[in-house]
């Protein structure tokens, strides 16, 4: 019996809108992620995927609803979770190594040990020897790797990812996806992966959750992905099972995407 790592229940997030009316990004959204499960959230743009992720991270307090982390109600920052952001979040004034060390330093760990651990992690994300470079001296893919090491060195039980690879070129992207799967398979954290790319979602996940178009979006359908692991993200995309899954999920997703476009009047 696997435990529920993250449980969002009846989450509603309301923001004051531009014209004074309240705007609900997500309304009555619920989501449970089991320990060791890799879940992707897909949905049309502006459907509140990131809002849900920020609630799960404890960065945003929901207007209504509860968050439970391994059974405990969440107050403040979710300390069991690591968060990989869409845009660059490395501290530009710290070298790659110092960036990986920063969480350990904040936790007050011994500097020498933190340094060693940071170097280990840099090696694991194939950046051994780049520790003394500043973020602007690294490529986009390398910066993502540093960010991944920065998050994983803290050994979070839950990993929250907000379209982390969307800014990368196609080749770097599938490389990073494979590396992510490899790292994940080592200790099977619970992952919530937000993306607008359905292929990415299917090739990485155990379960794909489709969100409705905003405002007031919520999960409306979910699909278990029974593709064999270990997977290679570019090879798995050519299998017939993948194509079947893609077709089925796209049927559900298409309706929402069309709704989103209709609302924006495009």
């Amino acid at each position: 019996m696997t435990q529920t790592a993250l449980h969002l229940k009846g989450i509603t997030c309301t923001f004051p809108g531009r014209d004074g009316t309240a705007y609900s990004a997500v309304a009555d959204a619920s989501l449970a992620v089991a320990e060791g499960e890799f879940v992707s959230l897909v949905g049309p743009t502006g459907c509140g995927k990131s809002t849900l992720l920020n609630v799960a991270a404890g960065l945003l307090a929901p207007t209504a609803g509860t968050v439970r982390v391994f059974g405990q109600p969440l107050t403040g920052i979710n300390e069991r979770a690591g968060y990989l952001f869409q845009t660059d979040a490395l501290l530009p004034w710290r070298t790659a190594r110092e960036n990986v060390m920063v969480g350990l330093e904040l936790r007050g760990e011994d500097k020498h040990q933190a340094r060693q651990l940071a170097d280990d992690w840099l090696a694991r994300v194939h950046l051994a020897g780049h520790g003394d470079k500043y973020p602007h001296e690294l490529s986009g893919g390398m910066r993502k790797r540093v960010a991944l090491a920065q998050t994983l060195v803290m050994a979070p039980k839950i990993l929250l990812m907000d379209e982390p690879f969307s800014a990368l070129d196609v080749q770097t992207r599938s490389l990073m996806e494979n590396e992510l799967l490899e790292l994940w398979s080592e200790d099977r954290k619970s992952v919530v992966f937000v993306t607008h790319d359905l292929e990415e979602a299917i090739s990485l996940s155990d379960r794909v959750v489709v969100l409705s178009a905003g405002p007031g979006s919520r999960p409306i359908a979910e699909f278990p992905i029974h593709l064999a692991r270990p997977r290679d993200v570019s090879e798995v995309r050519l299998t017939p099972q993948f194509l079947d899954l893609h077709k089925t999920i796209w049927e559900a997703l298409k309706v929402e995407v069309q709704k989103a476009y209709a609302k924006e009047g495009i």
Partner: protein
Amino acid sequence: MSDRRIVLYQVLLLVALFVIWDVLTRTEILPPFFFGEPLVVLQRVWEWFSGGTIYKHLGVTLIETILAFVLGTVAGLVVGLWLALSKTASALLDPYIKAFNSMPRVILAPIFAVWFGLGIWSKVLLGVTLVFFIVFFSVYHGVREVNPVLVANSRMLGASKRQLLRYVYVPSATAWVFSSLHAAVGMAFVGAVIGEYLGSARGVGYLILQAEGVFDINTVFAGVLVLTVCALLLDWIVTIAERRLLRWRPGQVGSQG
């Protein structure tokens, strides 16, 4: 190589300006009585330094400038961070900051002379009021424009409020501070010299005032020249510190290799 060439041209331009100045005054197209004679000016500077009479005055002016610069910068940094991070405090103090900043600060010089005497402190404080606002505004805006993702990421990595200040806000503001420090150096000099000019018994501003009293325009120019060179030197020191501390910034010379 081309950098060297630029420096060479810069020096040549300076020499050319002195030559033009010399020719214009020598031929009396510009009356030397009002415009001075560059050779006499340079000779005066030489006499000051070889005879040692300048050191006492220059030392006082430099101490005033550096004190004003350091105190004003620290105050601007602290208050800037505080107001940027505390909404209540910034809302409360906003009109006062604006009022103080728009006040012509030179007017304060005689008041400071009355309050703090004719020694260095009245000059230092005048300089501080000038430097403070330059640094304050850049820190204030710098902190307000810190990338929110950096803050969110550091919070996820476990940063407390105090640690956010140390790990995110202060380093982020440093880049903004340095961009303002070049202007601040000049302002610290302005504070010191204006203060001396309006009432003192020492300093380069005092020398200039004395010379002006007897229409010795060459000495006035000599004083201006010495001050300009000193301001350039201080600005250069700021640039060096900037390069060392902001090595992480893209496009910094120090970041190569």
